C-alpha cells in the first residue's frame, strides 16, 4: 500500500509547482494519465524515494510505502520495496551484457553470489528470457531492454513496480509481451501512460491529471470526458459513443457488424509522381537493413509505414529522403525532400525558435504560413529547448518544412505524445497534403494511421510485404497484420469481416 498525505513539491530547478496538495491511498494497480509535463512521473518518483533523496526541492507532506515514511528511508532501502522501470530503455541498461545487468541489481542489494544465481535462474525461466542472457546490451532492442529491467526488479522481489510510460517506445510485439508479463505478476503496479487502450485490462483504478492541482480518480472510464485531460479516447470508447453499442460483453465485433458500422478515411487527391524508388537495397556495417524495395509517391499523398522496431522504417525513409545512399537500386526524386527526426532535439542549435526556423527558410510568406499552420505563433521568441514535448515536435517539423520541401518524411511523430498533440499532428498532416506536400509517416499508432491516411505499407525485416487500403481492408490483410504484431483494433476487424466471403 502506498499513501500520499497532502504532498506538494517544487523541483529545485523548476519554477512552478509540480504537484500540489496530493492525498491518495493506492492499494491496487493504478494507471496515471494526463498531458505531458503534468507531473505523472513526479508521482512515481515519490514512491521509490527519488523525491526527496535524489531530486531536491520544496517538499511538504508525507509519503508512506507499506507504512514506512519515505523521508526516513534511503533510496537504497526503497529500491528493494519499489522497483522503477524508466521511460528511456537506453538510459537504464548499464552493463555489458544482459546477465551482468541482472547481477548488477542484485549485487547492489547486497545478496550473496549463490542467492544471485538462484534468483536469476528463477526469473529468466518465469519470464521466458533465458535466450537474452548472453546478448550484448547494445544489441538489445528497446523492448528487450524494458523486459530486462523489469526482470531485474522481479528478481529482486520488490513488491511494488513503477513503470513510466512503458509502452510508448515499444512496437506491437513487445507491447503485448510486456503486458502479458505484467498481468501475470502478483505485484502492486503503478503505471503512467498516454495511451489508455494499452492499460485498460491492467488497471484497477485511474488517476487522471489535468495540472498540478486538478485531478480525478475513477474505476470506470466510460462517461469521462478524456479530452479535458488531453487524453485520446481509446478506440473502444469512441466506437461505443458513436454507435451507442455497449462496449462490454462477448461478440462485440459481431454486434457492431450488424449495425453496418463503417468509418471514413482521409484519402487525399493525388497528383503527378514526385518520387520513385526501384529495387532499393541498403546495408550498414555489414548488417542487412533494407531489401529490394520498390516505392512510388504522388503529389499530396499521405503514406503510413507500419512494422516492428528494426523492420527498416527509418532506414527506408532516410534512403528515400536522400540522406543515405542506397547500395543498389535507384531513387528518382522529382521534388525537394525533408526529413523530421523522431527526436526533435537532434536538430535544435539556436536559442530562439524563430532563428531555428530561419536556418533553412527561403521564403518569408511560406514561413508565415507554416508558423500559423503548425500553431507556433506563441513560441517564436522562446528557446526551443524549453518548450513542451508537443511544441518541440512541431518546431522540428516547421524547421524542416521551412526549406519548402515537396515531400516530407516524419519519423514516429506521435510516440510519447499526449492525445492533444497527436490530434494536432493529424490536422497538420492533412493541411500539408491539401497544400500539395506529400507526407510519409512511420508509426506504431494505428488510431493515428486511420486518421491521416488510406495508404499503408507494412514492413517486415527490411521489406515492404504489403500495401493496404484500410477503407477496403480485407480479411487476409487483417490476418497479416496480426502475424506482424500490428494490432488492427476493432473497427478494421469489423469492416474486414465483410470480405471473408
Amino acid at each position: 500500500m502506498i499513501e500520499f498525505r497532502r504532498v506538494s513539491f517544487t523541483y529545485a530547478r523548476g519554477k512552478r509547482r509540480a504537484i500540489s496538495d496530493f492525498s491518495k491511498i493506492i492499494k491496487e494497480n493504478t494507471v496515471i494519465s494526463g498531458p505531458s509535463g503534468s507531473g505523472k512521473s513526479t508521482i512515481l518518483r515519490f514512491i521509490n524515494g527519488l523525491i526527496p533523496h535524489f531530486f531536491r526541492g520544496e517538499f511538504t507532506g508525507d509519503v508512506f510505502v507499506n507504512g514506512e515514511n519515505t523521508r526516513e528511508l534511503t533510496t537504497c532501502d526503497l529500491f528493494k520495496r519499489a522497483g522503477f522501470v524508466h521511460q528511456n530503455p537506453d538510459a537504464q541498461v548499464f552493463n555489458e551484457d544482459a546477465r551482468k545487468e541482472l547481477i548488477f541489481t542484485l549485487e547492489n542489494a547486497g545478496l550473496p553470489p549463490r542467492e544471485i544465481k538462484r534468483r536469476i535462474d528463477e526469473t529468466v525461466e518465469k519470464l521466458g528470457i533465458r535466450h537474452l542472457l548472453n546478448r550484448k546490451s547494445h544489441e538489445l532492442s528497446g523492448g528487450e531492454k524494458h523486459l530486462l529491467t523489469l526482470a531485474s526488479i522481479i528478481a529482486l522481489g520488490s513488491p511494488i513496480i513503477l513503470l513510466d510510460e512503458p509502452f510508448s517506445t515499444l512496437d506491437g510485439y513487445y507491447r503485448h509481451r510486456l503486458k502479458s508479463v505484467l498481468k501475470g505478476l502478483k505485484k502492486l503496479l503503478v503505471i503512467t501512460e498516454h495511451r489508455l487502450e494499452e492499460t485498460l485490462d491492467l488497471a484497477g483504478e485511474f488517476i487522471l491529471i489535468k495540472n498540478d492541482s486538478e485531478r480525478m480518480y475513477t474505476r470506470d472510464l466510460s462517461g469521462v470526458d478524456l479530452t479535458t485531460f488531453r487524453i485520446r479516447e481509446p478506440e473502444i470508447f469512441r466506437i461505443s459513443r458513436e454507435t451507442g453499442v455497449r462496449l462490454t460483453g462477448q461478440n462485440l465485433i459481431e454486434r457492431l457488424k450488424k449495425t453496418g458500422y463503417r468509418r471514413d478515411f482521409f484519402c487525399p487527391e493525388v497528383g503527378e509522381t514526385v518520387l520513385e524508388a526501384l529495387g532499393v537495397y541498403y546495408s550498414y556495417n555489414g548488417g542487412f537493413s533494407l531489401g529490394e524495395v520498390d516505392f512510388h509517391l504522388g503529389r499530396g499523398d499521405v503514406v503510413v509505414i507500419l512494422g516492428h522496431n528494426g523492420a527498416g522504417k527509418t532506414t527506408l525513409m532516410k534512403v528515400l529522403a536522400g540522406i543515405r545512399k542506397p547500395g543498389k537500386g535507384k531513387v528518382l526524386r522529382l521534388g525537394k525532400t525533408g526529413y523530421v527526426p523522431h527526436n526533435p532535439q537532434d536538430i535544435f542549435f539556436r536559442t530562439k525558435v524563430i532563428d531555428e526556423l530561419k536556418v533553412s527558410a527561403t521564403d518569408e510568406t511560406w514561413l508565415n504560413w507554416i508558423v500559423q499552420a503548425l500553431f507556433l505563433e506563441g513560441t517564436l521568441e522562446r528557446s526551443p529547448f524549453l518548450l513542451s514535448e508537443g511544441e518541440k515536435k512541431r518546431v522540428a517539423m516547421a524547421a524542416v518544412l521551412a526549406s519548402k520541401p515537396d515531400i516530407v518524411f516524419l519519423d514516429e511523430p506521435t510516440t510519447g505524445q499526449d492525445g492533444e498533440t497527436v490530434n494536432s499532428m493529424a490536422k497538420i498532416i492533412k493541411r500539408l497534403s491539401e497544400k500539395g506536400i506529400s507526407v510519409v509517416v512511420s508509426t506504431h499508432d494505428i488510431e493515428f494511421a486511420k486518421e491521416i491516411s488510406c495508404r499503408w505499407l507494412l514492413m517486415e525485416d527490411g521489406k515492404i510485404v504489403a500495401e493496404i487500403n484500410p477503407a477496403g481492408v480485407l480479411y487476409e490483410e487483417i490476418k497479416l497484420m496480426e502475424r506482424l504484431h500490428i494490432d488492427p483494433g476493432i473497427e478494421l476487424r469489423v469492416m474486414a469481416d465483410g470480405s471473408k466471403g
Partner: protein
Amino acid sequence: MDPRVKILILVLFDALIVAKEVLLLHVFLFSLLIFLAFSLQRRKFAGFLKGFLPMVLTVFVIGYLFISPADAILLSLRFSELIVASYIFFALTDAEEISKALLSMKVPYNFVFIFTSAIRYVELVKVKFREIREAQMGRGLEVKLRNFQAILVPLIVGIFVLADELAEALESRGFTCKDRSFFEPPGWKFRDTVYTLLVIGVFLALFLTI
C-alpha cells in the same frame, strides 16, 4: 590470466621498447607485434592501421628532417611498437577485467563503474553523432566545419539529457547502496603468481643481455 599480470607485461614491454635502441631488436619486436595483432583481429586491426599510419609517417618525417634517416626508422618503429602493444593489451582485456583489476587495487566501486561506463558510452555517442548529422541533412543542412555547431549543440544537449536520465535510473537500481556484494569477487590465483615470476624472469634476462 589476472588483468594485473597483463598490465605488468605491458609496462615491462614498454620499458624494453623505450630503454633499448638496438635496431635488430626493434625490427624483431615490430614484426612480432604486427603478426600478433593481425592474428588476433584481422579486419579490425587493418582498419586501425589505416587510421594510425599517417601518425607514424609524421613521426618518420620529423625524425628524418630533424635528426637522421637511421634514427627516423628507429623512432617510427618504436613509436609503432608502443601503440600496437597497447592495442593488443586492450584487445585481450575487456573493460570488465580492467574494472576488476582497479577494484582489487582498492579503487572505490563508483569510480570504477563510471570509468567502465564511459568506455561503453563512447559507442552510444558515435551513434548519436550519426543520427544528428543525418537529422540536420534532413532539413537541407550539410554539416561542414563552418557550421559545426549544428552538430555540436544537439550532441552536447543529448549527452547531458542522457547523463541525467542515467543518474536517475542508477539511483533507482540501488547503485548508491553501501553494502554491495560481488558475484565474482576479483581474485588472484596461484598460476598468476607463476606467470608473474616467469614474466619478470624473461624481461630481466632481456634487459641484461641486449
